[in-house]
């Protein structure tokens, strides 16, 4: 009980928590274990909010952990003979540490709303660029054919190889044929579950060309891990050239376009 060294040892262990915590978050970006490259317009805002919360919680984290450390260090029974303070609380302190966090949290919630609304609620008024239909364990894609409308006989059908134009809004219509899936584009900061029976719109504006991962982020069965697609962002002309090349390929392999529709799960896709 009278061993001061033990108290010092345990206090330092608790001091190690904020040091280790800050160190991990400081080193992580340096070794490239950090937010993947963002190539979308709204992604910058999401990342900013992430950093904002990281800063705020970081300050609270370090502050409270240091108070904890200091209390353990200073008030070790072996460190002094002073009796413990006989106090049951403080009304003022309770009010202070209720109102300040309440205000901060409320501010934080309100501060998020506009970005959330832009990404998930203010849908651009345009026809879908492409329909993504999730299925165990692949991403089926359907582009409107020459008639510019989805769900007609001349649609272009592809699997896992999504191409989209950059510098303009794109609207994806997301569906599922079987179980739940989640359409996750890490580099675009987009995630949306695909739900059988629902048609869910997803929109964003990519700002850079490149090829990136499509990840399934909702458990969908044994092959969940391999439900991988690729998304290629390219300027409008290349995108259109690619589209017509793929369309020509489809025409060549399947001369009668009427026969191409059934496999796309239209019982659900028609919803």
């Amino acid at each position, binding site marked *: 009980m009278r061993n001061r060294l033990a108290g010092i040892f345990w206090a330092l262990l608790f001091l190690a928590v904020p040091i280790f915590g800050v160190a991990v978050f400081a080193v992580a970006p340096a070794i490239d274990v950090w937010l993947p490259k963002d190539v979308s317009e709204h992604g910058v805002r999401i990342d900013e909010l992430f950093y904002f919360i990281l800063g705020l919680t970081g300050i609270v984290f370090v502050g409270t952990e240091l108070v*904890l450390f200091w209390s353990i260090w200073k008030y070790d029974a072996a460190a002094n003979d002073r009796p413990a303070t006989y106090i049951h609380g403080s009304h003022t302190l309770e009010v202070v540490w209720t109102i300040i966090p309440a205000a901060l949290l409320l501010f934080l919630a309100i501060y998020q709303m506009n970005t959330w609304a832009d990404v998930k609620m203010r849908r651009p008024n345009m026809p879908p660029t492409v329909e993504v239909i999730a299925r165990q364990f692949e991403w089926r894609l359907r582009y409107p054919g020459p008639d510019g409308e989805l769900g007609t006989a001349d649609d272009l059908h592809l699997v896992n190889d999504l191409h989209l134009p950059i510098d303009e809004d794109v609207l994806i219509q997301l569906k599922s044929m079987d179980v739940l899936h989640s359409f996750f584009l890490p580099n675009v900061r987009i995630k949306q579950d695909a739900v059988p029976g629902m048609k869910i719109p997803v929109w964003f504006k990519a700002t850079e060309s490149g090829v990136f991962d499509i990840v399934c982020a909702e458990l969908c069965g044994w092959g969940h891990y391999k439900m991988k697609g690729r998304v290629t962002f390219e300027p409008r002309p290349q995108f259109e050239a690619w589209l017509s090349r793929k369309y020509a390929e489809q025409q060549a392999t399947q001369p009668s376009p009427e026969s191409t529709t059934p496999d796309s799960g239209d019982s659900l896709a028609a919803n």
Partner: protein
Amino acid sequence: MTPPTAVTAPTVDHVHVSVPQSSHAPHGSTPGRGIGHFLSTYVFSKDHKVIGLQFLFSTLLWFLIGGLLALAVRWQVAWPWSDVPVLGKLFAQEGGQMAPEFYTMLFTMHATVMIFLVIIPILAGAFGNFLIPLMIGADDMAFPTLNMLSYWFMWPAFAAFGASFFVEGGAAAGGWTSYPPLSTNVASAPGSGWGQTLWLIGLTFVGVSSMLGSVNYMTTIILMRAPGMTMFRLPMTIWAMFITAVLQAFALPVLTAAGFMQLSDRMLGTGFFSPEGLIINNATPGAGGGQPLLWQHLFWFYSHPAVYIMILPAMGMVSDILTTFARKPLFGYRPMVYSVAGIAGLGFIVWGHHMFMSGMNPALGITFMVSTMMIALPSAVKTFNWLGTIWGGRIQFTTAMLFALSFVSMFIIGGLSGIFMAATPVDIFIHDTYFIVAHFHYVLFAGTAMGVWAGIYYWFPKMFGRTMNEFWGKVHFFLTFIFMNGTFFTMHILGAVGFPRRLADAYHYETFHHLQPMNAFMTWCAIGMVATQIIFAINFFWSMFYGPVAGRNPWNANTLEWSAPSPPGHGNFDFQPVVYRGPYEYSVPGCEKDHLMQTDPPNQAAAAAAAALAAH
């Protein structure tokens, strides 16, 4: 203040006046009473302490199983498709290498075991049972038979979950959340056959057990408090248990109903959770006309309050342990009680934050974001009050205290990381990544499990009459603390990369292929963490028989259980406890000793009694 409710316990004749120390379970102590007596004393016992210990032993055993499942999961994440050492022999049909469907089963059952067979029953079942009557000064629970049944209803659950590993297709593999249609459609996954049916049956029995316990706890705490034990003289442990019981009572029926709906979808061909025309794996579509999101709403309406069921009792126990070893009154007792109530109340209106990306109306997401942000407030108030409690104290570094302090330290991390997910735009990126895995392991392992260990080291003397070895206790604490942070803290930055959970092998993605070394590090830490528990197991069993004998009050604590014998006999108290004050009167100025027990008569009365005795 309500006046002292002098409720006489209905079975007061059980109180053995001056029960000798050794009379733990007096029925069984006489030889030759036969097998019937042995069964009624140790097996189908109605004594809350025996039932509490039954819960404790069962849940610790499942804790071991859950931990091994976790190691198997970690093995696959760190070194996908490589032979699993030791454990690999258990699934020899795959030749030691894990099949992806086996992996999905592992993490499903890891979570299921840890949540439904370890955390919930160890808090409410083990500690709730053991502590409630002792800490309120009752001789037993209000309904002893119901109490016995609450334990024995766990066994069908143990059997169902256990047996599901051996049925065709293996145990459930749809995640512990069992989202339909994956869980309802037999063709959608190997584990969605009998494994899932047994899972639902097991879950129902766990629910029945919890409900029996919950009704009992509420009744006991309301009606059977010792004379003088007003509600606002209850220790925080009891407040937390009480509010947890209320949460259980209100939330559980929803889960039970939802479970039966899913069972009916699977076995009777209804379509509560399946839309029209679902084609899974080319199988014939079922009835349809339902909605997969309905399950998520019902499930999380229970399972979010359940998150608080999984932490509130630990918060209560930690509050009591911190005051004992800081030798200081709890800072802000009433705000602590109100914040527990606040967490419970708000806990019912935040379930939607599990569904931000689910396809639920995004406008609804905004309201759930606000309520979720606000629930951080009572948690923050609690944390500040814990800090206020140890500030200015005289800290004694017992093993229990170290675990309690680490609960506070780790809960800060778990609480703050929750804010990231509550912020809907940020959640778009980190939802279903390792960020959330880090978050809930900080709350449930680094939080609740630390609180549970604190509780075990603290109340062990009351349970078994002996103290656990402090040196090995501290070694256990130190190694667990180090390995735990090595395992879970790094998960935050994996989450920042977007590393998704539940993937058997994520390294074929360009975004994640460089994360294998970090995962290997975490797996080594996890192995160390599980291995450390061998120290705990040996200490636990050794101390039970050979530890130093503890008196009634080895920690000089104030609450009622410490005035009973260690271990208490059947009927608990060898005197009628009368409560004179709150539970946290430590270091009262002018008082000889640094603690004033709830049962210590007030000074004036003591002086008067002494004077009367002298005059006699």
